[in-house]
């Protein structure tokens, strides 16, 4: 009995210093804080993605600055730009080559729904990348600001862990 009380007390004492969690939560936290994006800039949104990775907006704060060129080493595909019918096969191949668990962020209006390039009689653009595979987060904009990309990343982290790392910024 005493030994149990002691160990219970010991748990309480070290609670501020040692976190105990279910393994799932731990894995989710690890995954969310170290999302490795695939370098997949297709068009204009790619420049804003690069700006998000540069010093002012700094994706490194969220653990996501390690852009991997190879899909085998990435777990997040940020589709930044228009997906073409010619390119669709390559995008699908890249998605299939990524190992599970993997997530997709559709950045920009083109990736969400074809963007400004949809018109009656259009022959080349895939109207939204969710016609090819499931998308987790949609970031609208043409192009979205780097802050919007960061917000999308935080939303994805919230989807993974159930908690938001940073409260939503409310405008005054």
């Amino acid at each position, binding site marked *: 009995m005493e030994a149990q009380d002691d160990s219970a007390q010991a748990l309480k004492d070290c609670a501020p210093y040692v976190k105990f969690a279910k393994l799932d939560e731990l894995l989710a936290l690890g995954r969310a804080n170290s999302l490795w994006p695939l370098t997949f800039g297709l068009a204009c949104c790619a420049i804003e993605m690069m700006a998000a990775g540069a010093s002012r907006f700094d994706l490194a704060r969220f653990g996501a600055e390690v852009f991997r060129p190879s899909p085998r080493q990435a777990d997040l595909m940020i589709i930044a730009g228009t997906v073409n*019918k*010619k390119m669709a096969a390559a995008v699908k191949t890249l998605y299939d080559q990524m190992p599970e668990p993997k997530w997709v962020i559709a950045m920009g209006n083109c990736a969400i729904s074809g963007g400004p390039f949809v*018109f*009656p*009689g*259009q*022959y*080349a653009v895939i109207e939204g990348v969710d016609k090819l595979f499931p998308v987790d987060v949609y970031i609208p904009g043409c192009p979205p600001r780097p802050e919007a990309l960061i917000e999308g990343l935080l939303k994805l982290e919230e989807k993974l862990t159930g908690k938001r790392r940073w409260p939503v910024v409310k405008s005054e």
Partner: protein
Amino acid sequence: MNLITPQPPGNTPQPVPASTPAAAAAPTVASPAGQQSAVASKPPAALVPPPPAPVLPNPLAHLSLPFRGVDYAAKGYHAEATVAPDQVVSVAEQLDKEGLSLDTITGVDWMAEGQMEVVYDYFHPAKALRVVVRARIPRDNPEIATILKVFPGANWHERETHDFFGIRFLGHPNLTPFLLPEDADYHPLRKDFAQ
């Protein structure tokens, strides 16, 4: 979603009509003297014919090619010529000797006239000289010789024109789709293209 909203006729102000290319290029414009009214009230602007366009100097007059001088400020090029389709290669050779560079090759689909127009743009890298060469080919069998041997840069321009219009460039080694998918069998910039 059709973004072009038709405007009701009659209440849209028109810009001042510029002189048409035919008028600018013709040597003289005969302004019928009878229309100049001697009545004190000024005739409305639309009835007074435009003043005869000045004959512009042809910067390529020393070549025996049908070039016409064009008003650069109005059109953006200095000389133009309409040639027969079998002359485009010799025109390209002569312009190459003049030191011009190939700007672009494109097509225009004049479906109503049953013709396609192949437009060659050239520019000079040392002086202000932009030259346009046009050739019309029948729409149902659009073929024209390639100028690849003169200007290797024509390779991609001709492939793109073939992609968009279906114009066959005879002698081109690789007329496969350039901007369209490899298995594309449609020509999207034709006026009768429907998805």
